């Protein structure tokens, strides 16, 4: 077969590139969550199908791939003993691919005691007005901004050093990630959030990283805590549902990719592949 094939979709969008690659070639910019990976292990072992392929991009300065999305899926596959898995390969320089941040809505956190705890962990915490929060994040003066439900706000100054900032963010999240429940959220309106999360105690906001910083993290062997970077990926492939037995088989990697190519072509021929140009809501994620 051709080894590089693109189908032209009716929308003229180039068809996504799917490949089976060795897991060892994929490098993380986020530390996976062991709890979520463990839950996935159970599901994958039972289903024996991988629903959504992780998303990677070729590394610029080294061989292999940078993982954009799917740290827990890859960790679960590794725990199950797989050495390779299907991924969607994207162009990280695509201007339509945007990088933002998730924020954390933390429940039942006692604000004054928490601020003291942060300082005890060696983090500088400075007061700020609610109106100034957006600004210090946008200018990257802060590596995190904090706001209680009664709108008492503070920020942790950035150091202009990526390693130090990653360390500060990791220390900050460590103070609540195991002791308090929290949710990743993409909005910052406290009143709206409280409707969904009645126990909301504090909102932790993070700045948007640059793509070049993500590449730098990997080059420096640094990892952000999981669930912080939020890649908005155009043309994300969902519901591929690939059987795991193929990945486990004795077929060579080249043959596994031949199989994947045949699988994809048949799905297209049988009109099972649909492109949605508009944003969609998925109710069984």
């Amino acid at each position, binding site marked *: 077969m051709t080894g590089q094939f693109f189908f032209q979709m009716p929308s003229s969008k180039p068809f996504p590139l799917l490949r089976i690659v060795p897991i060892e070639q994929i490098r993380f910019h986020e530390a996976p969550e062991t709890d979520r990976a463990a839950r996935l292990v159970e599901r994958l072992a039972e289903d024996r199908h991988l629903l959504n392929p992780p998303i990677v991009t070729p590394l610029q300065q080294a061989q292999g791939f940078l993982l954009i999305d799917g740290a827990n899926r890859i960790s679960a596959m590794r725990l199950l003993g797989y050495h390779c898995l299907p991924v969607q390969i994207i162009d990280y320089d695509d201007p339509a691919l945007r990088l933002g941040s998730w924020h954390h809505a933390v429940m039942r956190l006692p604000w004054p005691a928490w601020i003291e705890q942060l300082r005890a962990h060696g983090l500088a915490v400075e007061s700020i007005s609610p109106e100034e929060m957006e600004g210090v994040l946008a200018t990257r003066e802060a590596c995190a901004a904090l706001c209680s439900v009664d709108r008492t706000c503070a920020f942790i100054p950035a150091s202009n050093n990526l390693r130090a900032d990653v360390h500060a963010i990791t220390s900050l999240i460590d103070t609540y990630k195991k002791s308090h429940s929290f949710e990743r959220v993409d909005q910052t309106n406290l009143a709206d959030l409280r409707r969904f999360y009645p126990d909301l105690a504090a909102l932790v906001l993070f700045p948007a990283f640059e793509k070049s910083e993500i590449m730098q993290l990997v080059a420096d062997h640094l990892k952000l805590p999981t669930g912080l970077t939020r890649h908005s990926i155009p043309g994300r492939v969902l519901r591929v549902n690939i059987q795991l037995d193929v990945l486990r088989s004795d077929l060579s990697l080249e043959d596994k990719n031949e199989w994947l190519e045949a699988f994809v072509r*048949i799905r297209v021929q049988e009109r099972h592949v649909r492109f949605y140009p508009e944003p969609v809501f998925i109710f069984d994620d």
Partner: protein
Amino acid sequence: MPVQIPNQQQVIAELNKALGWELRAQAMYAHYAAYLKGLEMLTLKSHFEEEATESFGHAAKVRDIIATLGGEAVTTRDPAPIAHSEDWKTMLEEALKTEQAAAGLYKKILPMVESYPPFGHTIIHIMKDEMDAVVEVEALLGH
């Protein structure tokens, strides 16, 4: 008027190899299904019978392509001997070799017929079936 594609005679020759291999696979699976014993008969008999049926279906599709290309389809199976065995593991090992070889044949044919999509679609389906069969037999063998 036969459909014309590049390297017509070479394609027909390769398709005839695949057809002969399918006819051999049919005979092999039917033979093994008859010689299964004990508990393995419960699980493997239907598997072998299904594989024989699948080979019959593949042979029909390949024969149709050969006919459309104006070629003469072979009527006898590939001469590679079918090892007689009453041991289920040996049967599966022989099945694995057969499916691997079949996948290899179709892998070779696919780029030769891709310029004519109806043939390309048929061959890619068959090739994936053969690769799925390899994976399935490997799993049955506990690889």
